[in-house]
């Protein structure tokens, strides 16, 4: 019973984090870059959304602003990496760290937490009513339908985008940079575009989560990359077996995110504290990265042993030159 009560919330969060996972899929799977700026851009999306709404910006426009802010953050990471030669991991960390200050001071005006309910106190904007938000935790139907619509729209738009001339070369940039350059593709520009789209989607998810939970918090993006990767690994472990195609992969990734939140809800109901969420995600990612590696190590060792046995039997009688 408790589980059934908690299920809609798990699905709603799974869908919102599914968008984060889609964003990370673009950087990690398509561009082959582990982009850590998403931790920052997720919070940026949330902060921009609350502050914009507090200042009387319509809800839909504030969500667009969140997307754009995330896109700018992603582009900055891309430029640090491609134009200034900073290794991609470090470029992401630098952006993430900068965003912490920017979110806290520049956007939130020094507040680390900004609930929608406090808008009238901070800005004197008494026109704001929570009903104007697209989704709220208390409205179980909207909190599933709205993220679902966003997920569907993002998947369709990305699906179309990656069939355009630019989209195809962004795919090839990650798949084979040498080939891309030989075919006249500006891979630096493509990395910037790809990271901008990726972080824009992540920030959009941040804006939705802020509305869902009723507040923005500057720390809410901590570990977003790891949660997103966990969702990707869970999702792809199933969807790649069905059909290795783009749309199926993205649907799988969102599914992975929902599964992740359902598992987490169950574990929590069994008595685990919410604070263990991040430890759990780190463990999931570590396991998914380690298993293929260990498999390969184990098999290549066995093969190696077999080869050395063969060599020994061949060089029978001769001087061992090992």
């Amino acid at each position, binding site marked *: 019973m408790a589980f059934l009560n908690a299920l809609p919330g798990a699905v709603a969060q799974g869908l919102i984090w599914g968008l984060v996972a889609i964003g990370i899929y673009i950087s990690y799977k398509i561009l082959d870059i582990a982009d850590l700026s998403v931790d920052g851009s997720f919070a940026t999306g949330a902060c921009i959304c609350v502050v914009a709404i507090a200042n009387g910006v319509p809800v839909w426009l504030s969500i667009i602003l969140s997307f754009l802010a995330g896109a700018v953050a992603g582009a900055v990471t891309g430029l640090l990496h491609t134009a200034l030669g900073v290794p991609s991991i470090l470029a992401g960390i630098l952006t993430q760290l900068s965003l912490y200050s920017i979110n806290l001071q520049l956007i939130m005006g020094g507040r680390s937490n900004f609930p929608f309910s406090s808008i009238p106190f901070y800005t004197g904007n008494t026109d704001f009513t929570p009903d104007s938000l697209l989704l709220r935790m208390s409205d179980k139907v909207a909190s599933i339908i709205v993220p679902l619509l966003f997920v569907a729209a993002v998947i369709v738009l990305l699906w179309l985008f990656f*069939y*355009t*001339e*630019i*989209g*195809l*070369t962004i*795919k*090839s940039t990650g*798949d*084979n940079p*040498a*080939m*891309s*350059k*030989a*075919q*006249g*593709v*500006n*891979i630096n520009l493509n990395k910037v575009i790809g990271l901008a789209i990726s972080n824009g989607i992540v920030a959009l998810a941040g804006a939705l989560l802020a509305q869902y939970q009723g507040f923005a918090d500057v720390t809410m993006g901590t570990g977003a990359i790891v949660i997103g990767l966990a969702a990707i690994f869970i999702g792809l472990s199933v969807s790649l077996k069905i059909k290795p195609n783009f749309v199926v992969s993205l649907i799988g990734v969102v599914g992975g995110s929902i599964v992740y939140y359902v598992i987490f809800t169950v574990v929590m109901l069994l008595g685990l504290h919410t604070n263990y969420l991040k430890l759990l995600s780190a463990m999931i990612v570590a396991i998914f990265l380690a298993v293929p590696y260990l498999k390969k190590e184990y098999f290549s060792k066995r093969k190696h042993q077999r080869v050395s046995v063969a060599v020994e039997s061949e060089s029978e009688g001769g001087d061992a030159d090992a």
Partner: protein
Amino acid sequence: MLKISGLEKTFNPGTVNAKTALAGLDLYLEDGDFVTVIGGNGAGKSTLLNAIAGVWKPDFGKIELDGLDITGMPEHKRAKFLGRVFQDPMMGTAPDMEIAENLAIAARRGTKRRFVWGIKKGERERYKELLATLELGLESRLTSKVGLLSGGQRQAVTLLMATLNRPKLLLLDEHTAALDPKTASKVLKLTDKIVSENKLTTLMITHNMHDAIAYGNRLIMMHEGRVVVDVSGEEKKKLTIEQLLQLFEQSSGSKFGSDKAILSK
């Protein structure tokens, strides 16, 4: 058409690992020249092709293509003029993408990528016809991922990609070396066919002296970052491997001995 003068490149300068790969190389190619390039391991052949392709900037010297100075032009920009096939069959194609997608990207080499469909109506038909000319049965596998193809098939597709949008200059770096002998000779014949049908100006590196003599209208041999032998026309047609070895010894002042293992007859 291609004019290279005083090209120099030293890797890791100022360290114990400093290596001068190009030592003031001069080379002039006429329109339609099909030049085979031979030379021992480390002679600087790949470095020459990489310099032309713009993988990095040379230390000194100038590279002109049809009167245009391309010495400092970024790699992706000068790709407009160049078709390239690499030694490694994995390098020339995007494995996670379909054959048609790879070809579509190549068909737009030298154009600005736009926000329009990446494969237009009718394009697939054209690709089917082109793939059929490879005689590898790929015409029915337009939507297969390139990663599923064999090395020889991938190299043939790369060759098609390099020439789909007619390049001013075709650069082939031992593009059959990683293939088994039968596939290698098939890809080489295909190369010859494409080059002669399209009258492509071509630089083809090979480690096989027999192929170097059999193909093309001109042969150059490199040694220590320079061109030391340059034979063309009738003289090239009549060339034998023995003569080639002799030429090498005369001009480089060294015995061929150690290189023999690398340059196979």
